[in-house]
């Protein structure tokens, strides 16, 4: 069984949770006290991941400590049609890899600004926000071009792990004082990701609250509990 060393407020750990939820891959979560406990910098955790970063995905003997690598593995193993990781199409695959690399600039800018604003991590926050806006402009331009071709996601005409890699720190950026008001194409893309079957939220990312089809089930659950 997959084991995810997890932190509930980590956008990077959320990438793994979101991917597993969408792919329907069962896993065991191991919560790590990242804050305030700094458990990721303690010897027990460093034995597992000397880099001291979260998330970590463990599958048998395989230990993955990078979120892009985790997404690659999950999609490669748990998506039989192979659309989330288009390994058979070199051009598509290369574009996916390119956006995975781009996602690191989101973590370093929007993600860092969020940690600063949320748990007071030391940072030149204005520089981080400016960097986030530069990255958002790049993303906005690409998503605008994609929309002209009728595509809602980053690569070609399907959602891929690139979308999962880029989604969290863009969606969470208001937590770090970076609004989405300037970016209509990004807003449309965020909604498209939220509409993916199996989508789950994390704190700071709100559900679309579309009318539920399952309301009778909820009532039944209440009756049992009562």
């Amino acid at each position: 069984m997959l084991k995810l060393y997890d932190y509930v407020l980590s956008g990077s750990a959320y990438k793994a949770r979101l991917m597993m939820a969408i792919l329907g891959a069962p896993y065991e979560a191991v919560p790590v006290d990242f804050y305030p406990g700094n458990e990721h910098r303690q010897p027990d955790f460093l034995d597992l991941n000397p880099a001291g970063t979260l998330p970590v995905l463990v599958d048998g003997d395989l230990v993955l400590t990078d979120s892009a690598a985790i997404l690659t593995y999950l999609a490669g193993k748990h998506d039989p049609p192979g659309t989330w990781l288009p390994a058979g199409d070199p051009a598509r695959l290369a574009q996916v890899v390119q956006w995975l690399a781009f996602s690191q600039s989101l973590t370093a800018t929007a993600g860092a600004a969020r940690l600063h604003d949320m748990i007071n991590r030391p940072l030149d926050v204005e520089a981080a926000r400016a960097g986030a806006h530069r990255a958002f402009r790049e993303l906005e331009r690409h998503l605008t071009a994609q929309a002209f071709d009728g595509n809602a996601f980053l690569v070609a005409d399907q959602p891929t792990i690139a979308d999962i890699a880029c989604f969290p720190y863009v969606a969470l950026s208001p937590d770090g004082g970076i609004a989405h008001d300037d970016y209509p194409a990004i807003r449309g893309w965020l909604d498209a990701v939220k509409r993916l079957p199996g989508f789950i939220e994390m704190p700071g990312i709100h559900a679309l609250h579309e009318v539920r089809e399952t309301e009778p089930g909820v009532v039944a659950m209440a009756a049992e509990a009562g």
Partner: protein
Amino acid sequence: MSKWVPVALADGLKPGGVMRAVVGDQDLVVWRTTAGAVNAWNNRCPHRGMRLSFGFVRGDRLACLYHGWQFGADSVCRYIPAHPDLEPPATITATVYGARERGGLIWVSLSGEGEPDMPDIAVHPVRSLAVDVAPGDLLAALRGACFPVSETWQAGSGTFSHEDLGEAVVAIDGVDGDARCRLVAAVQPLPDGRAMLHLLVDEGPDDGPHDGPAAALKLRLSDWAERLRWFLENPQATSASWTPVLVEERAA
């Protein structure tokens, strides 16, 4: 402030969509019912002050994200989930501002008086993009802009001209390949002294029936707008005002 301000491409706010706009000092929520009607209100739930732009649409109602209070298109509170059997007093309302769709744009007005300063022409949406310059500077640039930046646009005199369609709307007529092309650009002042450029295109009346411009044309126009923004935001990079020649030189 009685002016109507363009805040989005009409196409950019889908049925059931909710967005935020700031006009002057006023924070607004702009939203569309699932049936398509556009509304602009004060961006504040009268219950606990939550920005309604975080809310969600159910049918012809906007619900606040915080407690789910639902407001009808007339802004009257219709439903308070904490009290499902209560008929909310009609005095619970959001503050309503003017909202219109015209010329492919969504316009709002704090006073609601008059009409947007733009003819209701049929145009196709391209995109909106924020520009870090003052609205007046963006308008001035648009009034002097042409399309030499892509090889398919015919540069040179006589192939383009400008027409003010309103106080904040400029039409630029040019040629795309062999076809006439009219670009329509509307400028929205943003609260921090910047501007939003809303870009639309009309392929011209002679093209006959069509389903809208090709993706390739939209992409050229989008790239053109990116380039316009670059020159406006990097004035030190240009020796004089932005001219087609200069663009060609810098691109080389």
